[in-house]
């Protein structure tokens, strides 16, 4: 998974800032300037090509967006003001435009984060957030989530097996209390694990902050390289606002 393209090589904090800045330019663009979004999409395709991330990696991950898509699709039906007939459906013009705006901006944002995640190991991402002065507590919580998701997940599947080994089958609402109890005991177990982890951390001199393990080696060149994307985005956004 360690592939070496210019996108992979950039330090995480630089990529995070570039991504957020780019998303801001996308969000600032009026939805009626359709061409601008085509240009943004082309930028992201360019980044994906440069990072050699194939579409089959990006597309399945875009499913996280589905709830927002549903919301966007409802907008034309509930919007007010002038309407337009499409295939016999009366749709609000303002709603159509707003729905399109949510859909396209959301999609660009999601693709952007997928590209970041696909080109940055999770651990580097955490280091990057730390260097960006994200509060240490939040970085630590994220780091423990990263470490313990699998541990807790394994525990959950063992509990599920143990339930089933004793003849339990999840059949509708009657089995909910059992599942709720499992969730409860998983919570207690994880809480106790948290206490043990804390002891282990204190034993090795933990003083409230994760030590910085990798000194930053970010150069000005890294920043300028990464800023190409948001600066290009900014140019598009300005042009879009200008010609509106």
């Amino acid at each position, binding site marked *: 998974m360690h592939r070496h393209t210019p996108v992979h090589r950039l330090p995480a904090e630089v990529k995070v800032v570039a991504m957020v800045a780019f998303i801001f330019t996308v969000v600032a663009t009026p939805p009626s300037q359709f061409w601008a979004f085509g240009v943004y999409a082309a930028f992201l395709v360019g980044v994906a090509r440069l990072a050699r991330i194939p579409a089959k990696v990006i597309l399945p991950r875009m499913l996280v967006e589905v709830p927002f898509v549903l919301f966007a699709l409802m907008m034309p039906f509930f919007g007010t003001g002038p309407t337009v007939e499409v295939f016999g459906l009366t749709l609000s013009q303002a709603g159509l435009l707003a729905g399109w705006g949510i859909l396209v901006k959301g999609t660009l944002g999601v693709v952007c984060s997928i590209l970041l995640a696909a080109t940055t190991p999770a*651990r580097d991402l955490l280091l990057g957030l730390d260097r960006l002065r994200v509060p240490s507590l939040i970085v630590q919580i994220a780091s423990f989530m990263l470490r313990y998701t699998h541990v807790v997940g394994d525990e959950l599947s063992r509990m599920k097996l143990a339930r089933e080994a004793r003849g339990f089958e999840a059949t509708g609402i009657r089995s909910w209390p059992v599942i709720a109890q499992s969730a409860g005991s998983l919570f207690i177990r994880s809480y106790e694990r948290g206490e043990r982890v804390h002891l282990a951390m204190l034993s090795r*001199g933990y003083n409230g902050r994760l030590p910085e393990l990798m000194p930053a080696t970010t150069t000005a060149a890294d920043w300028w390289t990464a800023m190409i994307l948001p600066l290009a985005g900014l140019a598009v956004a300005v042009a879009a606002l200008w010609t509106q």
Partner: protein
Amino acid sequence: MTASLKVAGLAFAYPDGYQALFGVDLEIQRGERVALLGPNGAGKTTLVLHLNGLLAGGVGSVEVAGLPVQKENYPEIRRRVGVVFQDPDDQLFMPTVHDDVAFGPANLGLAGSELEERVHEALDLVGMAEFSDRPPHHLSFGQRRRVAVATVLAMRPEILVLDEPSSNLDPASRRELADILRSLDITVLMVTHDLPYALELCPRSLILSGGVIVADGPTRDLLLDDPLMRANRLELPYGFDPRNVPA
């Protein structure tokens, strides 16, 4: 020469009133490997947590290489006492093996190439150097236990305290860990129920029972003392005879 570890008159009751230790005295010399045996509920874990000041507030004293375990000394005490907890998933909390091993020395203020050297040295000692960039959940249980040992070796401790080091290990991992522990030039206190393991690794044993040290002597002698063993709920595995083990 100062002892690596000296515990004198240590007694402790938990806030809920349960008294776990009733005056523990023990001394471990530099370079010794000592097993701490005892039934469940004997106070072994409570004692271990006192060795680096994670529990305190009772009476008595603990000294590590002459340095008293007191609040103002905690950073240095926690460097000197390397506690390896029973569940490696509790011990390994960082995203990669490298980061976890670096955690302790980085807290001591090491950085850069010095830090990298420590990490590499510690992982080398347990034969896990090639797994440096892996996340802990990709390792086998035995490998995780070895990395857990490395996380404290990286702090170059005075004494290594192992809580049930052989638990949940398959026989091969158990032997590999024993080889590693034997190869280390360090004082070891090993808390265990695994009596053959204690006999294999530790020439001397202590029995903690009811919150006091009830026996202290050569491991073989203690294991062969049937009334003592019985009185403290210690049992050898079926068919195991310490007399058949080469000294």
